[in-house]
């Protein structure tokens, strides 16, 4: 795999060198990167911003790999209609290694002006900034709100259709997508989303951007309660098997809806999103309500901002009289899956030179009573429902 990626990158670069003398637009190599460091005040657990096995807190005082990355993208344009894009990003992976993942590899065909189809691997467009969330330079924050963007489903293999059309004074973009996606969790194998069907509508006018999206997928996830569910299956009563079937995230139809808003008149910056996740039956983290709002104001080359974010998760845990020796453990294991939290952030972006931005962010995270807030590597001294702070710095660049 690593060899394939390296030869691909070399081929792309050779191609770029070969065509760089021509002034047509046949090949373009671009890239982005982030050098980041994060400190957490929670010493009894690790904060993780996404799918990595450890982070700042218990494992280390400052983590410099969790949000650092280097991305390279080659765009080949054959004519007005046909183009190909390949993107690889090296970042810290599920196995603690730092190496590239092919994050995009697709063919794009523009059948009519404004109507394009893409086939191959593409970034998942579930939420407002999902499909460029790793390109730090394109984001106002140190990193995208973990409440929305902490999951590992970054790219999918499939197809999408994009249609741009005016509606009065609004520029409308409608996107429909389908495919499947999987990623490897640090300690629970592959997580997959199959039969993904989604649509997003973006309306833009002047400084306003509105986006609504809906995505449904069949989720298959190894969850923390699976060993207990196996015991229910072994108990082999019809009620216990029903519990095992019900709580297993196995081809579980899950729907994600979101509403996003962006206001970018130049000096002010407002970004807000609301998300709701719903599963067809009760399962771990069945219902999630997510939201954040960021308000920033530009002072010359510096843009300070404040963010308020909330993640609310709930799962019914009232299994009673099914397997008396297990019911209490199952209920408390389900409750332990709660990751509800409220986060307040203060940060700033400083565009101190061309194509390079410095960012810093301070987060105060309040965990709901009983919630572990997505912290991992929890030590015996860790207390649920507490609070902790994060301090982060980053340099983002594009080329």
């Amino acid at each position, binding site marked *: 795999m690593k060899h394939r990626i390296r030869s691909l990158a070399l081929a792309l670069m050779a191609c770029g060198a070969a065509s760089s003398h021509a002034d047509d637009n046949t090949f373009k190599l671009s890239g982005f990167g982030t050098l980041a460091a994060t400190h957490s005040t929670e010493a009894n657990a690790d904060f993780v911003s996404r799918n990595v096995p450890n982070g700042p807190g218990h494992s280390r005082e400052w983590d410099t790999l969790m949000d650092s990355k280097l991305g390279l993208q080659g765009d080949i344009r054959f004519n007005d209609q046909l183009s190909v894009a390949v993107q690889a990003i090296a970042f810290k992976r599920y196995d603690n290694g730092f190496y590239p993942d092919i994050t995009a590899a697709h063919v794009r065909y523009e059948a009519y002006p404004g109507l394009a189809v893409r086939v191959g691997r593409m970034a998942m*467009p579930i939420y407002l900034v999902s499909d460029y969330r790793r390109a730090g330079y394109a984001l106002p924050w140190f990193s995208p709100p973990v409440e929305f963007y902490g999951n590992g489903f970054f790219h999918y293999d499939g197809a999408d259709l994009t249609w741009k059309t005016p509606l009065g004074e609004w520029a409308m973009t409608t996107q429909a997508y389908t495919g499947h996606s999987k990623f490897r969790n640090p300690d629970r194998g592959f997580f997959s989303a199959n039969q993904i069907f989604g649509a997003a509508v973006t309306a833009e006018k002047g400084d306003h951007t509105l986006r609504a999206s809906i995505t449904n997928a069949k989720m298959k996830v190894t969850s923390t309660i699976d060993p207990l569910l196996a015991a229910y299956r072994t108990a082999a009563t019809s009620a216990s098997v029903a519990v095992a079937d019900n709580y297993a995230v196995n081809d579980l139809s899950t729907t994600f809806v979101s509403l996003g808003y962006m206001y970018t008149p130049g000096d002010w910056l407002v970004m807000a999103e609301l998300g709701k996740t719903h599963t067809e039956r009760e399962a771990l983290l069945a219902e999630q309500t997510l939201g954040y709002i960021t308000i920033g104001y530009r002072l010359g080359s510096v843009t300070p901002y404040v963010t308020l974010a909330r993640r609310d998760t709930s799962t019914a845990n009232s299994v009673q009289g099914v397997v008396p020796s297990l019911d209490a453990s199952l209920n408390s294991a389900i409750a332990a899956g709660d990751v509800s939290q409220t986060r307040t952030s203060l940060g700033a972006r400083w565009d101190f030179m061309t194509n390079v931005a410095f960012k810093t962010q301070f987060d105060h995270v309040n965990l709901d009573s009983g919630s572990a807030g997505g912290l991992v590597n929890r030590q015996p001294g860790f207390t649920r429902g507490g609070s902790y702070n994060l301090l982060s710095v980053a340099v983002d660049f594009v080329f």
Partner: protein
Amino acid sequence: MQSSAIRKLIIALACTGACSAAQADVVIVVAANNPVGNMSKDQIAQIFTGKAVAFPDGRKAVPIEQGPTSPTRSEFHVKVTGKDAAQLKAYWSKVIFSGAGQPPREVGSADEMRKAVSSDANAIGYLEKSQIDSSLKVILTP
């Protein structure tokens, strides 16, 4: 950023109405034979940010930019898209790295802009008011 603000201030102080011609005036242009009429700032901003792909009459619109160091380019963006160089770079980064598209083609000089726009009925570009000739049609003076 600051020096250009100071320069504008000096120009503003030096100019007392009579010499307003000395101040740069960007105009948005299409080929003289392009049937499109006047367009609004929002419509033009949408074309130059890839959010719209056609003129109001439905014909394909191909935006053309001047190079990154061109003062006409910064003036155009400040007045029309409302973005400074860093904001524009951040905007295109999100478009490029999400695989949604590429920024407009760039030309190296006002001369090239004049040629590129006047020879293509789908093209739309911008120039200083003093740089246009009869091969071009102004559709907005922002």
